[in-house]
C-alpha cells in the first residue's frame, strides 16, 4: 500500500461540483480508470480518498489535492494518465506524487478574485475596495460550528495584487487556511459589501496556491 497525493485543477462546469459530490465523482473516476486503491472495509466498502482543503461551490482551483492509497505498483505517471482519461471535463490531474506534508500543515491559500460591483462606477468600487482592504482592523462576524463570533480579519488577510479594469476589478488575496483559522473569500467580500454599502453584480474566484507552515507550496 502506497500513499499518493493527486494534484488536480477544477475549472469550468466542474466548479459547480460540490465538495460532497467531488468525492463521489472521484470514486467513480478511480473505478473507471482501473486504478486499484485501498477500500474501507465493512458493511459498505468504498474507496478511501481524502481531500485536503474544501473548496466552496462555484470556485475554480488550480491546486486541489486528493490523497489515496495505491494497492499495486503502477507508475505514478500512468496513474495520472489513467485518471485524466476517466475524469469529466474540468477536472485535470497535473501531478501524482508521494505526499510530503500532511494536510494539517496548511496555513495559507491564495485566491484570484474577479468582481464587478452593481450600479457603481468601476473605478469608484475598486477604490472603495482597496481602501477597505488596507484598514488597520477588519472586524467581521464569522460563523463557526459553535455559533457566531466577531474576529479581526487583519492578521489573516494579505492583499498581494490589485488591478482595476474597465468593468472588473481583479485582486489576489492570501488568506488564512486550514484547521485553525480558515478564511473564505466570500467572507471578505461580504464584509466589504456590508461595511461600504456595496452590492456585487458577480464574483469569480479561483484558488491559485496553497502554502504550508514553513512557507512552502503545499499545492
Amino acid at each position, binding site marked *: 500500500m502506497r500513499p499518493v497525493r493527486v494534484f488536480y485543477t477544477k475549472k469550468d*462546469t466542474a466548479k*459547480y461540483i460540490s465538495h460532497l459530490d467531488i468525492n463521489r465523482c472521484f470514486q467513480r473516476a478511480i*473505478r473507471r480508470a482501473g486504478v486499484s486503491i485501498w477500500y474501507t472495509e465493512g*458493511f459498505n466498502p468504498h474507496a478511501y480518498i481524502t481531500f485536503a482543503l474544501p473548496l466552496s461551490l462555484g470556485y475554480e482551483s488550480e491546486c486541489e489535492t486528493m490523497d489515496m492509497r495505491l494497492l499495486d505498483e503502477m507508475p505514478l505517471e500512468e496513474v495520472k494518465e489513467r485518471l485524466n482519461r476517466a475524469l469529466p471535463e474540468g477536472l485535470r490531474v497535473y501531478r501524482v506524487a508521494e505526499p510530503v506534508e500532511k494536510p494539517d500543515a496548511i496555513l495559507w491559500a491564495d485566491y484570484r478574485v474577479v468582481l464587478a460591483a452593481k450600479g457603481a462606477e468601476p473605478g469608484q468600487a475598486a477604490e472603495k475596495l482597496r481602501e477597505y482592504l488596507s484598514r488597520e482592523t477588519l472586524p467581521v462576524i464569522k460563523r463557526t460550528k459553535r455559533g457566531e463570533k466577531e474576529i479581526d480579519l487583519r492578521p489573516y488577510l494579505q492583499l498581494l495584487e490589485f488591478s482595476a479594469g474597465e468593468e472588473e476589478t481583479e485582486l489576489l488575496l492570501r488568506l488564512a487556511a486550514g484547521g485553525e483559522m480558515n478564511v473564505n473569500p466570500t467572507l471578505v467580500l461580504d464584509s466589504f459589501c456590508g461595511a461600504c454599502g456595496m452590492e456585487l453584480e458577480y*464574483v469569480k474566484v479561483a484558488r491559485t496556491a496553497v502554502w504550508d507552515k514553513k512557507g512552502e507550496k503545499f499545492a
Partner: protein
Amino acid sequence: MNWKLEVEKILPRVQKPARYAGGELNSVVKDPAGVSLRFAFCFPDLYEVGMSHLGMKILYAQANERPDTWCERVFAPDADMEALMRERGIPLFGLESRDPIREFDLIGFTLQYEMSFTTVLNMLDLAGLPVRSAQRGAAFPLVVAGGPCTCNPEPLADFVDIFVLGEGEEVNPELYDLIIAAKKEGISKGELLRRASLIQGLYVPSLYDVSYKEDGTIAAVTAREGAPARPAKRIIRDMDGVFYPQNFVVPFVEAVHDRAMVEVLRGCIRGCRFCQAGFIYRPFREKSPQVIDRDGRSLCETTGYDEISLSSLSTSDYSRLEELLDKMLPWSEKGSINLSLPSLRIDGFSPKLLEQIAKVRKSGLTFAPEAGTQRMRDVINKNITEEEILSTCRTAFEGGYCAVKLYFMIGLPTETEKDIEGIVDLAQKVVDLFYSLPDRPRGKGVAVTVSLASFVPKPFTPFQYEPQDTEEMLREKQHHMISYVASKSKKIRINYHESKTSHLEAVLARGDRRLCAVVEQAWKNGCRLDGWSEHFDHQRWVDAFAACHVDGGFYANRTRPYDEILPWDHLDYGVTKSFLTRENQKAHCDATTPNCRLQCSGCGANKLLGRACL
C-alpha cells in the same frame, strides 16, 4: 444578449447549480453546424428525478448515435432558478449547449405522471414559446410528447403537436427523418403533421374532432385529413436487437436512482387489474441473459457506478433469472458492485434465489400485497395468498431480515370495512410470525411498515370504468384503519399519502380535451412541479376547475358504463376494450385470471407481435 454569460452569473446564486451546468461525464457535445436536427429532450421534473429515468437515457443515447442529430437534456428548473431566469429573461436552455431550446427543431417531453402536466406548460413558457399548439404557427420547434401518460393524452391535446404512442426506439428515428426531410422541403406545419399522422406510433391530436353528448360524455371522435381512425402504439419485437446505451451520463448531483441499470424485460404477465403499466406495456418480451450481462458490464465500465439494478416491471418473472445472476454475480462481486433487484414479487422467491439476493442486498424487504383480504386480492387479480406472503417473510426473517415494508391500496372497487381491517390483520400476522420463530434475528425487534396509497383508476385497465372514492370516503376509511391499528400492536407503522393529489390524478388520467383549459388555468394560477408537496397547492387547482366550469367529479367519481366512448378509446394499445370489460366483470365476481405464462387470456396485445406472446 449573451445568454451563456448570464447563466454563469446566476448559477452561483442557486441551490445545486450543477443541475443546470452540464458537462457531466458521457454527456454529448456536438458542433451545431454539423447536425441537421437539434432535439431538446425535456423531462418535466427536477434534474434529480429526470436523471433517474431509464427511458430518457436510452432515447438520448440513441438519438446521439446519429451523426445528423444532437439531442440535449432539459429539466424543469427549481423555484429559485426559475425566478432568476424569469427576472433576467433567460430562456430555457439545453444543458449541453446552453442554447435556447426555442431555436431547436424538436422539443420532446416524456410524460411519466399526470402531476407533471403543468410543468410541461411552464417549460414551454420558460422557453419563450406559446403553450398552445395552434398558436405556434411555425413548424419548428415541433413539440412532441411520449411516455406512459400518452395512452390518454387528451388533457394535453391542445398543447402538444404530436404524441408518441408506445415504445420510442423505432418510431423516434422515423420522426427524426421526417423532420429533417420537412426542413429541407420547407413544408408547412400542417403538412408535416399530416405526414406524421400516417406513421404508426404517432398521434396528431389536432387531426381529430371530438363531439360531446348532452350528458357530457363523448359522442364521437372523428379523424380528419386522412389520419387513421385508430392510431396504434409501436412496440419493439426483437428485444435482443433493440438499441441499448453502452454508457450513461453520470450526474455530479446525486440523482434519485443514481446507478447503472439494465433492462431485463418489457411488459408484464400478471394482469393486476389496477396496474396501468401491466396493460399498456404488453406484450411480455424478455432479453436474453447474454445481452443483459454484456450491457451491464459495459455500463459499469463506462460510468464507474458501484451499483447496478435489474430493471423491469417484475424482474422475478424473468424466466432465466438464476442464469442471469450466475453470469452477473461473479464480476459484480469482484468489482464490489452492488447488484440490486427492485420490483421483486413476493411469490417469486425460490430458496436459491433468496440466497443469491441475500448476497447482494441486506436492507429491508418490501412486498406489495396491495390488498388485505384474499377476496380483495382476487378482485384486483393480485394472485398472492396469505400463506405465500407469510412463508416468504419466514424465509426472510430466518435469513436475517427484521424490517418489512408492505404496500397496500385503499379505495379499491368493492372494498368494505373488512378489507381495510384485513390490511392491519395481515401486518399483525407478519409481526406475530416474527416472534414465533426460534431462529429470528437475535436481540432485535421487528418493524412492519404499512404504506398506503389511494387507488387511482387508470385508462387501459379493467378498472377504467370504476369510480374513485371521494376524498371524504377515503378519509373515513383512513380513520377506521387508524383506530383499528391502535387496538393492535405497536410494531406496525402506517404511512399514508395525501388523497388530494390522488383525486387530481384520477381526473387527469381519465380526462378529455375539456381539461386542457383547466390545466392551462392551473398553470396560470402558479401550478408547477405538482408532484412535490412543497410546491403543490391544491387551492390553485380548485380555482382552475371553478374558473373553467369543469367538475372534477365527473371524471374521477363516476361509474362509466361499458358502452360509453372513453376519451382514449380511439387509441389502439393492443389490449382490446372487450377484454378490459370482461376483466372488469370478472373482478365484480371475485374471479381471478391466470397469468400469461399459465394461459393466454386473449387480451389482444399479441396482435402487435404478430404471433403468440409466450
